[in-house]
């Protein structure tokens, strides 16, 4: 392990690994990334793997759109020997109330203005897009064919391998135990395997971001919230787009492998790192999905698990330098970090290298909470 580094990144999820890649690619030759377990062992590897541009705020639409452009050429750009499995099979968002239809129409106008090819479709066309969809009670749906999904393990691995080739050091099974601050500036970091002197630290630890913040005396408003997921056995192709119903608080996609991955939100999930899977989730998920996509009743569940959303007060991330000179945060993605990781990581790398956060992440600084200037996103599952 290096004794000194230009930048130390804490956290080996997709955000940390992508930042390591962009820093190295932009010429920073002494980047070190530290991960407590293995790469993608936290929220990244537990996520629903969707990539959607259908958001309700200009910032999120832009970050997602710019990320899709990077996902489209990720295998080539990163020289990956595997496949990140980015498939643009679309996203279909279902509306069951007139209020949801109005919200979708408003979002679509904004998304179209920003160049996202999305449109509102009626129930019949929704069933043409997903033939197994039960359209009972459905009023309309928003459809974007360039949304999709990717493999979080391979995306993270692709960024990590590319970063290593460009000279970054990545240490797994290495836990950060403290951050040294002298006269308001970061000067180093201590781990269970030695210490590193560095003027810059990036906190990319998801729902653990609050713990890392306290190491430098900051109270970052980040907390975990459990979300549960299940995966089925592989099956013949039944469904191309990811389907989301805010009304049922669920999402479901069929992966290129053939298995279905689905989740349902529970407003009463514990705000802790509890990652146990529950019977209640399995029962509710099965009930809702076999109503919405009836042929799934014959498909077997092979595994269920849980992971932590890294929640912030407005369900949007904290990006940029926070309070202490040289202490950066990229956490608080609140369930939509994987899909914006490519663009966010490049912007965070630019912020670290130039000292100025680029648009649009300038609006996602942690100061917004003390100013009361929250970025409220209406389209979170």
């Amino acid at each position, binding site marked *: 392990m290096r004794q000194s580094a230009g930048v130390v990144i804490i956290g080996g999820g997709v955000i940390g690994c992508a930042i390591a890649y962009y820093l190295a690619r932009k010429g920073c030759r002494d980047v070190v990334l530290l991960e407590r*377990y*293995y*790469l*993608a*062992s936290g929220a990244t*590897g537990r996520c629903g793997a969707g990539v959607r541009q259908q958001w309700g705020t200009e910032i999120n639409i832009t970050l997602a759109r710019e990320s899709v452009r990077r996902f489209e050429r990720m295998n080539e750009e990163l020289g990956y020997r*595997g496949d990140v499995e980015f498939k643009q099979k679309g996203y279909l968002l279902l509306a069951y109330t007139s209020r949801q239809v109005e919200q979708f129409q408003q979002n679509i106008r904004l998304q179209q203005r920003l160049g996202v090819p999305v449109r509102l479709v009626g129930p019949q066309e929704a069933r043409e897009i997903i033939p197994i969809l039960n359209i009972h009670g459905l009023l309309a749906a928003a459809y974007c064919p360039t949304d999709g999904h990717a493999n979080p*393990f*391979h995306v993270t*691995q692709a960024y990590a*391998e590319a970063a*290593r080739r460009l000279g970054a050091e990545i240490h797994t099974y290495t836990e950060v135990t403290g951050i040294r601050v002298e006269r308001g500036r970061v000067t180093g970091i201590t781990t269970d395997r030695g210490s590193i002197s560095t003027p810059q630290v990036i906190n990319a630890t998801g729902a653990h971001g609050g713990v890392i913040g306290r190491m430098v005396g900051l109270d970052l408003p980040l907390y975990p919230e459990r979300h549960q997921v299940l995966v*089925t*056995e592989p099956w013949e192709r039944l469904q191309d787009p990811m389907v989301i119903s805010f009304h049922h608080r669920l999402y479901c996609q069929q992966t290129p*492998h053939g298995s279905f991955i689905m989740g349902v939100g529970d407003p009463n999930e514990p705000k802790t790192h509890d990652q146990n*899977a529950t*019977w209640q989730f*399995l*029962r509710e*998920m*099965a*009930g809702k*999905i*076999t*109503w919405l996509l009836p042929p*799934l*009743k*014959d*498909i*077997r*569940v*092979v*595994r*269920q*698990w849980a992971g932590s959303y890294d929640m912030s007060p407005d369900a949007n991330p904290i990006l940029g330098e926070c309070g202490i000179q040289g202490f950066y945060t990229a956490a608080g993605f609140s369930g939509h970090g994987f899909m914006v990781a490519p663009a966010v990581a490049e912007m965070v790398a630019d912020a670290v290298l130039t000292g100025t956060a680029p648009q649009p992440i300038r609006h996602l600084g942690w100061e917004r909470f003390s100013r009361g200037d929250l970025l409220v996103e209406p389209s979170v599952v």
Partner: protein
Amino acid sequence: MNEQLTGPVYICRCEDVTLAEVWAALERGVTTMEEIKRLTRCGMGPCQGRTCRQLLARELGRVMGESPGAADMATYRPPVKPVKLGVLAGGE
């Protein structure tokens, strides 16, 4: 593991993962069962590693020069065996 076996040697029968693919993952710098699982899908199929996790632990122990018992077994998660969504929904 016997290197003199000819033809592909399957470690994970659900996901068709071969011994050669496991070795290729190890050459990429990963060192644990959790990582091999995520890169190769070994143990991610319908049997959830009931057959392959022991084989993988033994091979990993051999390559890393450790005992098979030192391997970090992937977490066991429900359900114990695959169950149809329709059954879970109470419809059958």
